[in-house]
């Protein structure tokens, strides 16, 4: 069976499993699945921007904005669970649009620094405006609006499946070619008629919406929010590590990576206990190792394995010349 067919079947099975698990009454497992889903969503989101050549070091900014929007809508405006998620999503899209407008034509490292400045800036604003956000002490979600853990888990699973679907749709659309061209060389892309601004706006709005959704639903699960938790660098790191580990620029990559990262995290916790700093150390080492030795991630490894299994029909013939000049 070919790799993409295999992955497609695996994807359907995974989607089914993820949607079914919340109903099985296994709280430990359901919690892990929930965290994997939110990680997968933000990983897909980061991967989308990376696919257009936009490296985000501030994805925790989107996550935190989504979380705060949902929490504040619920607490101050009495908005219910699902609509608050929608508000979170929209806020993420707006921030994405804002980021696109503000960063203009910035590329590469300068764009990355701008995103870092954005997310850290949000963190400081959140600390310094306690009247709005509860400040450093944080804010608790009103329990009256809580729809029940199982429902939250179900929505998270649906969200993950939708995010995967969205990323698949984008890869099938004509936007895909524009993003690939922009990733390679934005100036050259402009010369063949691609207007970078329009595509940047689109991808950042989409990516922002997804990441904020993840943050929003996460705050409903946790019930508590403060600026350091919401805009934590750790979130950004995981949003990057998952796609790198799984296979950057691919559809399956962020999902595979989220599974692998979650496995790594849980495994570390079980094996090495709760020593502070160990799991992040392992993630750091994983990140370094991936960049150096496995730049295409798990997906790349699978590709190579499949390629090595497909030998030419006639074996190694001396008269089959190397096509390279």
């Amino acid at each position, binding site marked *: 069976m070919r790799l993409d067919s295999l992955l497609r079947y695996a994807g359907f099975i995974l989607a089914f499993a993820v949607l079914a698990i919340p109903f099985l009454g296994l709280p430990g497992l359901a919690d892990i699945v929930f965290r994997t889903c939110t990680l997968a969503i933000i990983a897909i989101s980061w991967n989308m921007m990376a696919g257009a050549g936009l490296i985000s070091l501030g994805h925790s900014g989107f996550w935190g904005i989504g979380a705060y929007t949902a929490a504040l809508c619920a607490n101050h405006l009495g908005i219910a669970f699902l609509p608050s998620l929608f508000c979170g999503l929209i806020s993420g899209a707006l921030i994405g649009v804002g980021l696109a407008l503000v960063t203009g034509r910035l590329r590469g490292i300068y764009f990355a620094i701008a995103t870092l400045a954005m997310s*850290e800036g949000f963190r400081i604003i959140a600390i310094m405006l306690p009247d709005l956000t509860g400040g450093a002490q944080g804010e608790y979600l009103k329990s009256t609006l809580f729809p029940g853990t199982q429902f939250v888990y179900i929505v998270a699973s649906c969200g993950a499946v939708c995010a995967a679907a969205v990323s698949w749709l984008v890869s099938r659309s004509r936007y895909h070619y524009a993003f690939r061209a922009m990733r390679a060389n934005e100036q050259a892309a402009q010369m063949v008629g691609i207007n970078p601004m329009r595509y940047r706006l689109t991808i950042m709005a989409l990516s922002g919406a997804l990441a904020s959704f993840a943050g929003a639903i996460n705050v409903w699960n946790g019930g508590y929010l403060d600026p350091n938790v919401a805009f934590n660098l750790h979130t950004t790191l995981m949003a990057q590590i998952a796609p790198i580990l799984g296979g*950057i620029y691919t559809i399956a990559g962020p999902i595979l990576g989220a599974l692998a990262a979650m496995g790594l995290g849980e495994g570390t916790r079980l094996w090495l206990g709760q020593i502070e700093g*160990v799991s992040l150390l392992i993630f750091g080492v994983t*990140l*370094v190792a991936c960049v150096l030795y496995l730049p295409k991630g798990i997906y790349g490894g699978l590709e190579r394995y499949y390629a090595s299994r497909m030998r030419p029909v006639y074996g190694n013939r001396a008269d089959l010349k190397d096509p390279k000049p």
Partner: protein
Amino acid sequence: MNLLLQFLVDSILLGGLYTLMAIGFSLSFGVTRIINFAHGEFIMLGAYGAFWLFKIWGVDPLIAMPAIIVLGFATGWLVFNSLIKRVLAAPNINQILLTFGIGLVIQHIAVILWSGNSRSTTPEYALQALTLGEVFIPYGRLIGCAVAVALVALLIAWLKITEGGRAVRAVAQDEDAATLMGINVKAIYALSFAISSALGVATGVVVSFIITVTPFMGFPMLVKAVAIVIVGGLGSIFGMALGAFILAFTETAFAYYVPEGSGWSEGVAFVLIMVILIIRPHGLRGQAEA
């Protein structure tokens, strides 16, 4: 009036410190064009080095500095040649993630080894202060600033006068042309990175008796260094010093004149980054290369 004088003194002393912090960072960025996201962690290592030498053997940080600088140089050299050299030709994203990852690893090794508690070196002078009229000048900050300025001057002299320094400046401006001169660009990269690390740990030693030392102290300092380099522009030492003082003055101004300003002053670096990136990505005195 007295407040103004105090403000000026504090800003200037801080500016000197920031110049040292930024020049180490800008050396590696300016030459290799790779942002070393682990630079903050090198600062942290220097601070911890000073702390442990002080705590265990009672060595004054300034006396420990030369040894720590040598260690920092060696560590930087090692890190560059074993890890960073491999991503020189890789896309930006790999370079960013690699140095990010290295920083993460160093940070959490520190957390595991030394815990997240706050530390500080407390040599005699750090606890005393000079009083000129109504202006209060803590010795720690004064000496810290003096040492910082001395190190910066040493670096500038090295860049200007020596063969190696000239080669570094050449590589920073035009790598191909430098190669045509017979300069081994990769070796210069390694040298710049090593010197940058050495200056980073030196910064750490200096701040060990001024601010609290924790495994997490590096990141905010990295952000400030980035802000300074962006404000001042690459390729210009004068611009970078200017950026350092602008940041120092703005932060201090916030702390003094804005209610609850010390909280907001942390955000100054980020605001400066955003503002400059939007208006003038090559900074105040940088070259046109963006």
